[in-house]
């Protein structure tokens, strides 16, 4: 019998944040570890979710499918909020072929429909083996092109920031994920008074920390005794390179500097833990901005997201 997860919110709004979804997965993890054959995720008709949550949903479905689970996404109800939305933003096209889609309302997965609402969303596949160097600028242009009223100087700076974040994160996927499974780069632009952009880059590879650990035996011996949390802290503040000498390790550190410069939120999902850095510029040190959720469902790869306000 398939394990079942109810994708629904306990909040009246119906919104399921990335954190909420992690809690849903955490509660279900024993069922999943026990029943390694089938999983059905029932997406309730009133459920709503931001991009960050939906990319996690995509990642979980694809990873479990890759592990041999029979994964079903069941969009319940005749008028399911998320079905049309996931369809419009191209998320359904990113699901692995083995993932089964069910809906009470018939739909064509390949039909094109237009997204509506006060935000702009875009999802792109990232190859784990071929580095597309044109992608970071394209994505940065999509974001800054979707911001309606902002000074040109601010737009230029934001464009460089998003280019930098996408460049560092998508290159990490190609260089360190060591998987043929696709990763994803996604963005959502929220217009209006509280204008901001959320970007998410994830993969299903070996994970950021695991890609570094072989170097601890060779030339990074001082990190051998570090906990995962200490390693994350070191990567963000000083950088750790898997290569010998001073030939790398600037990527995540630069991302953190950008988060500080724009008072962004930054999230890192690795293994069975989720590191949340809130309003980075408002804290004197990294520790006070950081919250860690642990003992989550164990997932492969790395997921990093940023919420960047347009007016810091």
């Amino acid at each position, binding site marked *: 019998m398939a394990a079942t997860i109810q994708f629904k919110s306990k909040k009246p709004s119906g919104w399921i944040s990335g954190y909420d979804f992690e809690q849903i997965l955490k509660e279900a993890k024993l069922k999943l570890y026990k029943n390694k054959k089938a999983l059905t995720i029932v997406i309730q008709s009133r459920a709503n979710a931001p991009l960050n949550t939906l990319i996690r949903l995509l990642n979980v479905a694809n990873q479990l499918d890759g592990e041999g689970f029979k994964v079903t996404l069941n969009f319940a109800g005749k008028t399911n909020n998320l079905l049309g939305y996931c369809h419009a933003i191209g998320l359904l096209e990113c699901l692995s072929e083995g993932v089964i889609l069910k809906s009470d309302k018939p739909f064509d997965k390949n039909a094109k429909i237009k997204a509506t609402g006060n935000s702009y969303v875009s999802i792109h596949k990232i190859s784990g083996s071929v*580095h597309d*160097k*044109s992608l*970071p*600028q394209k994505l940065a242009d999509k974001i800054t092109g979707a911001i309606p009223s902002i000074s040109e100087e601010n737009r*230029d*700076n*934001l*464009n*460089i*920031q998003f*280019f*930098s974040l996408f*460049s*560092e994160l998508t*290159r990490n996927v190609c260089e360190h994920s060591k998987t043929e499974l696709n990763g994803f780069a996604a963005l959502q632009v929220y217009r209006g008074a509280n204008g901001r952009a959320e970007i998410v880059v994830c993969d299903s590879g070996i994970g950021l920390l695991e890609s570094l650990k072989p170097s601890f035996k060779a030339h990074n011996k001082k990190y051998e005794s570090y906990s995962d949390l200490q390693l994350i802290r070191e990567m963000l503040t*000083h*950088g750790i*390179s898997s290569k010998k000498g*001073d*030939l*790398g*390790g*600037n*990527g995540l*550190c*630069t991302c953190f*500097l*950008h988060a500080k*410069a724009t008072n962004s939120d930054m999230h890192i999902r690795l293994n069975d833990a989720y590191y949340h850095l809130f309003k980075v510029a408002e804290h004197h040190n990294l520790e006070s901005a950081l919250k860690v959720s642990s003992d989550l469902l164990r997932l492969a790869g790395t997921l990093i997201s940023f919420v960047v306000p347009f007016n810091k």
Partner: protein
Amino acid sequence: MKQNDNLINLLDYFQENSLTGIGDDEGKFIFDKLAFFIDQKPQYNIFYISIKGTVFDASFAREAIVRLAKHYRKNKGICLLDADKEMLRLNLLAPVLSLDQPVPYYSKGSFDHIKIDKIGIPSKTNLPLFNFVFENGITSASEVAEHLDFKVNNASTKLKSLYEEGFLLRTEDKSESGGVEYKYYAIK
């Protein structure tokens, strides 16, 4: 004084070679090009790189710019021009920290170093000497000692430290006693 022969327009290299500004491979490619350019002009001690119109990530910045400055440290200076975009300067910061190499720049006529907190700039005790040399041009330890009320040995040690850390360059001169006297100047 910035002259054309020691001014490098990075955008030209981007356009000629269809670069994206991404990654250490492109950074190393530019390093080789710029090092070749610099080595062809031994008459200049300071080279100015305009980054106007370019965008690059931290890995590119590390290999193309910060490593170039480190490569020529104590021999020639690298100074950035048109570094007006705050977010682009941020991409130089992690390489400045990891290579421990200062990078001076001009933005809208103002001089500064790529920096965060106390990193990337002269130490608190050396800063007055750096500022004196910056303001007054080529300067000896005895001149610094006289104006800042240091002992000559002390001024000499601090200037040497600024030189070795990559903040200043120096030239040899004959002292009145017939020995060698170093004269220091800023990379500006």
